[in-house]
């Protein structure tokens, strides 16, 4: 039986060659569609991965002070109350905000270097230099993101100037550069010691932006958070909530992806169907002829299945490769603004692209499956018709 299957396989490839126009139309359509959708999906996957890495670097719980529904600086007096909650390991102060250099805006984060957990998250992953230590407090030493280092052309040992809200020039000294393990999270980040950040942002005495709570290793953060709900005017953010926030921002992008998927599906179904009609008469005749020669219904389905699968998989795979290159190496021009939304993306920044098995499978599912259905089903219908009638109808 092997020779027969080889014959059918050869015949399928011959069909691709013979129906050149249909092959070309489907190939081009699939290439455009899968290039677009794979660039979007791979970038979305990359952004979601970034979000997960970012959340890994976050404290178990983040406590913010809420006034009139908005986050405002929180008093460090809360620390004593929070530290008394059962299951809380330690509470760290954090002050963060934004600063401009030229026309660009960067994230400035002030951390208490005495209590940082260096064992987890990407925030301590450095390309060069060192991370902040307790003795850096008040010295103006900073660790900067790789993107900033590249844009400002600074390296470990160099000084840099940041303008505060009051447009005062503040000089800082670079002691470390983040690696690009988490490109988005640390790319535009400047990390400094808490007192330096408080000075820079001119925070009132005893106030910080938020409090970072780390729970004991055997505790579940949500359970610990539940014990803090009685505290007045605070919002407690756990890692799941942060992740959902990131995903909402970077992930689905408010239905854009759904729309793209729908357009893709409809386009592919229409094109595949129209091509099935274009070659329909010829194909109908051919199926009738093959049946006359003794090709069984299964043989004909096998031929059409292989033909469509080869075409669909080849076009989709090629489209995915082009989509990956388009996003990873060319930063997906025309798509990048939709993908990142409000997120700041300097031109030097490279999109974090990730090829996930789910996305690859999804793309194959929405491209190859409709093609298989629109080619195999008509072939099957023709194959179960009397060969003479199939040929006669095709000739009519």
């Amino acid at each position, binding site marked *: *039986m*092997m*020779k*027969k299957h080889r*014959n*059918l396989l*050869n*015949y399928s490839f*011959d069909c691709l060659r*013979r129906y050149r126009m249909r092959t070309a139309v489907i190939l081009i359509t699939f290439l455009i569609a899968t290039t677009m959708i794979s660039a979007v999906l791979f970038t979305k996957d990359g952004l979601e991965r970034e979000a997960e890495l970012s959340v890994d670097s976050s404290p178990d719980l983040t406590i913010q002070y809420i006034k009139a529904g908005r986050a405002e600086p929180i008093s460090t007096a809360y620390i004593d109350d929070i530290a008394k909650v059962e299951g809380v390991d330690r509470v760290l102060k954090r002050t963060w905000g934004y600063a401009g250099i030229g026309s660009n805006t960067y994230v400035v984060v002030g951390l208490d270097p005495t209590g940082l957990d260096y064992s987890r998250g990407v925030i301590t992953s450095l390309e060069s230099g060192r991370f902040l230590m307790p003795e850096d407090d008040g010295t103006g030493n900073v660790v900067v993101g790789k993107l900033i280092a590249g844009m400002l052309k600074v390296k470990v040992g160099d000084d840099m100037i940041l303008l505060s809200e009051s447009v005062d020039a503040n000089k800082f000294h670079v002691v470390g550069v983040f690696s690009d393990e988490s490109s988005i999270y640390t790319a535009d980040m400047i990390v400094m010691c808490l007192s330096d950040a408080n000075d820079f942002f001119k925070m009132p005495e005893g106030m910080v932006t938020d409090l970072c709570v780390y729970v004991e290793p055997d505790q579940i953060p949500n359970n610990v958070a539940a014990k803090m709900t009685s505290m007045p005017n605070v919002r407690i953010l756990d890692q799941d909530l942060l992740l959902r926030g990131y995903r909402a921002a970077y992930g689905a992008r408010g239905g854009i992806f759904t729309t793209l998927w729908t357009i893709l599906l409809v386009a592919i179904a229409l094109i595949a169907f129209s091509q099935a009609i274009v070659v329909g008469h010829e194909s109908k*005749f*051919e199926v009738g*002829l*093959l*049946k*006359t*020669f*003794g*090709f*069984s*219904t299964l*043989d004909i389905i096998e031929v059409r299945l292989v033909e469509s699968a080869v075409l669909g998989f080849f076009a989709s795979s090629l489209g995915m490769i082009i989509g990956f290159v388009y996003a990873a190496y060319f930063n997906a021009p025309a798509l990048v603004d939709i993908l990142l939304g409000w997120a700041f993306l300097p031109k030097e920044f490279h999109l974090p692209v990730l090829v996930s098995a789910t996305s690859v499978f999804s793309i194959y599912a929405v491209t190859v499956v409709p093609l298989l259905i629109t080619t195999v089903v008509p072939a099957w219908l023709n194959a*179960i018709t*009397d*060969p*003479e*009638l199939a*040929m006669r109808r095709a*000739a009519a």
Partner: protein
Amino acid sequence: MIEVRNLTKIFNRGKFNETVAVSDISLKIKDKSIVALTGPSGCGKTTLLSMMSLILTPTSGEILYDGDNLLSGSDNFKTNFRRMNFGFIFQHINLLPQYTTIENILLPLYAFDADPKEYEERAYSWLKKLGIYDRATHLVEQLSGGEQQRAAFVRALIREPKYIFADEPTVFVDEETSRIIYRIFMELREAGKTIVLSTHDPELIKVADEVYRIKRGSLA
């Protein structure tokens, strides 16, 4: 032996354009013979031939090959029977235009567990016999009607089937090729093949062992 019992074919049954193409025909065809079906155009020759060769399902009746009623078999069974036993020469030739002559000839072999290339020598030998050896690698759309008919002839014989069904096999060929075809049919009969053909060609009718005349779907 092929035996046809009370074969009827009605197209578009129950509709306003219902057509009785073949009505209650019974006939017997002995093995190793040439049988000609004749009659005016539209009399039902092709429909009868198609039903006998199992590519068209009759409305009623029976078709027996060596005593077995093949119409009671499944579609798969009929397909297998066709593959193993039948060769076809169609009135409209029915070659695939994007294929070369030799590719068209070898096409039926794709359904077999065999390498079509093993049959190339036989195919070229037939092409030589029919005078179109030099057209083997040409696309069939580049061939004349007569050359296409001869290519279709070779395609039908490539597997040396037991039964050959030919619908107007000499309609597009010149006199000389017609004579070659008559001779080949006779040689095939000598080789034990059974040939059922529909034709208007009086010379071909002369070659037949038995002639059935059909008029308005019935035996005249």
